[in-house]
């Protein structure tokens, strides 16, 4: 049973005070990635106006890194254009948090993947 991992202050701050967390009524697009079997599950919801991300919300079941990267990813893209937002990668998210423990790098994929998928879903309806 593992019981400790070193996270930096920024990661812990986002974990304790996640930005843009919660449900959204009538989102323009949403996507859920991950599955309960693997552990982490992340749902992203978007409100899009004039090709810009006007509002974004997330819900995550996952470890500290998964919650912190969800929070940071939503913070980065809020207000950005769709074109800018879909270019965001897991590396951008991880860098914005300073650093993630090596075994937790994969968690940052989840946020970037969910965001991209939500944008794709929006385009389908557009």
């Amino acid at each position, binding site marked *: 049973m593992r*019981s400790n991992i070193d996270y930096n202050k920024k990661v812990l701050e986002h974990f304790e005070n996640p930005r843009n967390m919660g449900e959204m009524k009538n989102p323009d697009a949403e996507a859920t990635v991950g599955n*309960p079997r693997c552990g982490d599950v992340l749902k992203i919801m978007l409100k899009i106006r004039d090709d810009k991300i006007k509002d974004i919300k997330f819900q995550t079941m996952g470890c500290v890194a998964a919650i912190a990267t969800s929070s940071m990813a939503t913070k980065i893209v809020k207000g950005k254009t769709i074109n800018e937002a879909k270019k965001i990668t897991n590396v951008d998210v991880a860098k914005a948090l300073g650093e993630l423990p090596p075994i937790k790098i*994969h968690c940052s994929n989840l946020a970037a993947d969910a965001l991209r998928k939500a944008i794709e879903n929006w385009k389908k309806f557009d």
Partner: protein
Amino acid sequence: MKIYLDNAATTKVYPEVAKKVQELFVDKYGNASSLHSIGTEVRKKIDEARGKIARFIGAEISEIIFTSGGTESNNLALRGLAKANPDKKHIITSVIEHPSILETCKDLEKSGYKIDYIGVNSEGIIDVGEIEKLISENTLVVSIMHVNNEIGTIQPVEKIGKVCKKAEVYFHTDAVQGFKKIDLDIKDINLFSVSGHKIHAPKGIGFLYIKKGTNISAIITGGGQENKLRSGTENVPGIVGLATALDVDNKNNEIKKSRDKIIEGLLKIHGTKINGSMNNRIYHNINVSFYGIEGESLMLMLDKDGICVSTGSACASAKLKESYVLKAIGVEDLYIHGSLRLTLGDDVVGNEDYVINKIKKNVEKLREISPFKFEKIARK
């Protein structure tokens, strides 16, 4: 304030134990193999400690072999028996053993051993009948743990011992988690492993009980210490620390009361399950799952509140690795990830409400973040 609820991982060395250990570091520091007075004095300390431990478990002095701890004891038991009895190539163990048994078995498989890993029921208890059926002429040893380190379930080791005795097969039990906490009748047990640091002695000391007449070989060779079964200069501070720790009062009754009170409180949080049998369970263990959240996050939040626990969920690779023990008893995915293990010590007594309230608060916070809402599932 810190409340340490991880006593299955390790325990604090009690001051009275540390004091004795300190004496062996700075004052009586000799090598027990030396013939001069400082060496002889240390030899006496080892003999006293071994005698005390032997009396405590109802064994003979020559049946106690000091090792570096539980892992080494388990290795010596399985590999030492395998080495001395090369004609028998079958081992029976369970899927919920500690890694020091499971990995040793896997290693022995590579050199031609057939290993049967028997399962457990949803309560986390093995079926003795299954062992009985699997024993054959080729069986070297049955190794089943006394108390599970994650869910605290107690296996019917005395019954297994009887079955093995009848079949003339060696029986080993990993007694690391139960030693000194639960009485163990060693009449039909050939070997059992003990670790010092789980009972308030230092890390790096343990022993393997080997019943007289057991055919076993050393896996560490050298100067021939420990009846030629475990070479290496004796860890005298550890040995004396282990013997001294036998006098420490476990406060079983108080801790059990605290444990039951905390379980009662936690079960009031909806979407909560206790994993493993409540009837056959060591008195200080709580293994609890909260629906729809992840254990590491909960562990870290509790750490901030001064409560130290561990989790069966380990998001440490591309795929989250869940506890193989919880998997073996059939805990569902959305519960398995939100599991906590609380193994109580005396510092919990009087702080039960604090622990319950902090867990409740943090579970609620994580459920707010999670897309899985227990209420929605429950209504369906």
